[in-house]
């Protein structure tokens, strides 16, 4: 049976392969990444795209939610201030309505109520990072303006009914704002500005129409409760965002672990494989050296 006289050259081919395998394993160890090309693991590469997408979306939401929480908290504390202003207005009105005050005192109370109206309007026109938060979608327009051309004065709402929502990665929608007219100038006895303007008109002359004034004070009280109710919507949004943010953070942690496991090189495994590859290469080199020296042919043995 004849053998291939050139079989040593085949061994050299194997030596090249062993070398290439070593280089690849060394690169894996140094970069820490086990999948450096799509063909090494096509399914994992596809999976990686999806995982990274989700992780980045979660990260983006976490950042947005902290911005939004700031805005909502400003809205909430503004409404808190409005309620305390209105409480003060109600106690002033009550004292004016009991008939014990003289006209100049009544007028003085009227001025204070007017001051409170201005303050409430200013609170309703709160501006967060350059945008009016109670203007609906018209955030560059001052939401409330009061005209004293009429008696009682008229406060006009210049915004719209638009409500913005923030979407969470799992599809939940969180309300970000309440339009100003729904808080401050809702219909009938729920209107804060309506009640305040009426009270200012009631006390302007110093003479109090008690029935009218009492009715307007009650309306103001109703309106103040209404404001507190609207505040609940904002508080709910803050709670929802916190919950969503926590859920998203833990989701992101899990996904990051999954993605890391997918793509990172397992140092122990790679080191073992590298050690085996090195051993194989050394063995091949020895074999080639031996065979080469043994491949002197019969010619060298022949006597001349």
């Amino acid at each position, binding site marked *: 049976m004849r053998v*291939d006289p050139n079989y040593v050259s085949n061994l050299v081919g194997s030596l090249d392969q062993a070398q290439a395998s070593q280089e690849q394993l060394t690169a894996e160890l140094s970069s820490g990444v086990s999948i450096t090309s*799509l063909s090494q693991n*096509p399914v994992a590469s596809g999976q990686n795209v999806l995982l990274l997408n989700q992780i980045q979306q979660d990260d983006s939401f976490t950042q*947005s939610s902290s911005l*939004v929480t700031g805005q909502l908290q400003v809205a909430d504390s503004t409404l808190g201030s409005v309620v305390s202003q209105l409480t003060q207005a109600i106690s002033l009105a009550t004292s004016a309505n009991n008939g014990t005050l003289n006209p100049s005192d009544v007028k003085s109370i009227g001025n204070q109520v007017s001051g409170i109206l201005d303050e409430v309007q200013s609170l309703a026109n709160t501006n967060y990072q350059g945008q009016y938060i109670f203007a609906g979608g018209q955030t560059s327009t001052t939401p409330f303006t009061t005209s004293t051309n009429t008696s009682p004065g008229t406060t006009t709402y210049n915004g719209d009914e638009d409500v*913005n929502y923030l979407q969470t990665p799992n599809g939940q929608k969180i309300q970000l704002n309440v339009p100003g007219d729904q808080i401050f100038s809702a219909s009938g006895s729920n209107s804060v500005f309506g009640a305040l303007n009426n009270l200012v008109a009631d006390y302007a002359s110093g003479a109090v129409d008690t029935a009218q004034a009492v009715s307007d004070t009650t309306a103001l009280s109703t309106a103040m409760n209404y404001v507190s109710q609207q505040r609940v919507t904002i508080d709910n949004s803050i709670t929802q965002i916190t919950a969503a943010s926590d859920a998203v953070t833990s989701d992101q942690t899990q996904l990051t672990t999954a993605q890391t496991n997918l793509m990172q090189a397992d140092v122990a495994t790679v080191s073992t494989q590298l050690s085996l590859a090195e051993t194989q290469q050394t063995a091949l080199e020895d074999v080639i050296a031996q065979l080469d020296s043994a491949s002197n042919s019969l010619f060298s043995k022949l006597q001349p």
Partner: protein
Amino acid sequence: MGTISSAFSLMSGALDADQSALSIVANNVANANTPGYTEETPNWQQNAPLEINGVSLGAGVTETGATSLRDRVLEERLDQQQQLASASGTRLTALDGVQALFTPDSGSTASAAGDIGSDMTSFFSSFSSLEANPTDNALRQQVLSSAATLAGDVSNAAASLNAQRSALDQEASGVTSQVNSLTGAIAQLNQQIQSTSPDADAGTLEDQRQQDLSQLSQLIGINQIKTENNGLSITTTSGQLLVSEGASYQLTTGTAGGVTHFFVGTTDVTSQLAGGGGELGGYLTARDQDIPGVLSSLDQLAYSVSTQVNSLNNGGTDLDGASGTTANPLYIFNQPTAVAGSAASMNVVMTDPNQIAAAGLGQGTGDNTNAAAMANLANQSIVSGLSPTNYFSNFVSTLGATVSGVQAENTAQNASVTQLQTQNNALSSVSLDDEASSMTTLERSYQAASQVFTMLNTIMAAALNLGDQTTVS
């Protein structure tokens, strides 16, 4: 008496035969490392015996020439396997270049650079961020800059693919001149072989022809057809005649549709060559099938994302309160006119961040409905029935699987080639040990023949002297 002088001629015949056999051995040893050389063995022919008076007398031996030790079937199988290995090897090299454009993002910030999947996510996330504060200038700038990153990476990938395609095109057309010179050489060898040894193995001429065939098989897929008088015809795998005994037909090139096409005579054989094997088959498969496939997937992605985002942005209200009109559309991306080529031409045309229509149509500028809608595109089936990320994920897996498949094919084919090569070498390569032992045998038989000659000489002298020791010595 006649027997002694005929014995002389027998011995001198033997000496000639041994010498001529030794020259064949020497030729083998001299050509031990010549590529394509097939070991030759001497042919010993017993001369026809003479009949004299009913007695049959042997007439010695002649060495009638050398026979090459080759197995034609084995050689042809080796050529065929090399065609396949060559094709898959060339295709694999091209595909490695393609998949290098889409190296997976490992998750660290550095590796995200150039990854189209990450770019898309960042782009759609920038709209999600805009939902929180639709009028914020920094967030709007972020939308435009992430759009630019996405468009840049997509168009760069498309440009690289087109460049790779041109490179493959050039390499493929470079193969033609080599093919033509080889077919010309083979045709000439055919003529020589048919005229010098139509009935037997043609020795070194045959070696050369086989060597040329082997090289030709690596370049282009061929079928070999043996014809009469030791002739050979060569066709492409699909049947186009390249060599017909003494005549060869040129492979010519021409341009069609921006790429090189290949002709034999006037027939366009490009698509047949692509499936035929050899380097040319590998180049053409990569050039006409693999790369266009990847490009069209990228085009689909670019087209869908660009048109959908543009359409939504155009239908909303921007920070200046304006909406898109036919005369002045509010497009973020260059609006593509057709799917083909939209990846290469993807870029951001909007420069003013105020023109991003975060608000819905007819809404105040603080509205975020349109920003939410654009962010939502990430989850809608806008690219061939899949969301953009799912589409890209599929694309990446499919490409990886294709390359991995070709790798496996190539490894198997190379192993097969090595095996066949080993078998062929075992048969046809010069084994120095064999030559040494042949040489020793021939040397001994030469010594033996010359020894017999010497003894015959002594006997002849004795015969001439007829017993008397003095006349002749």
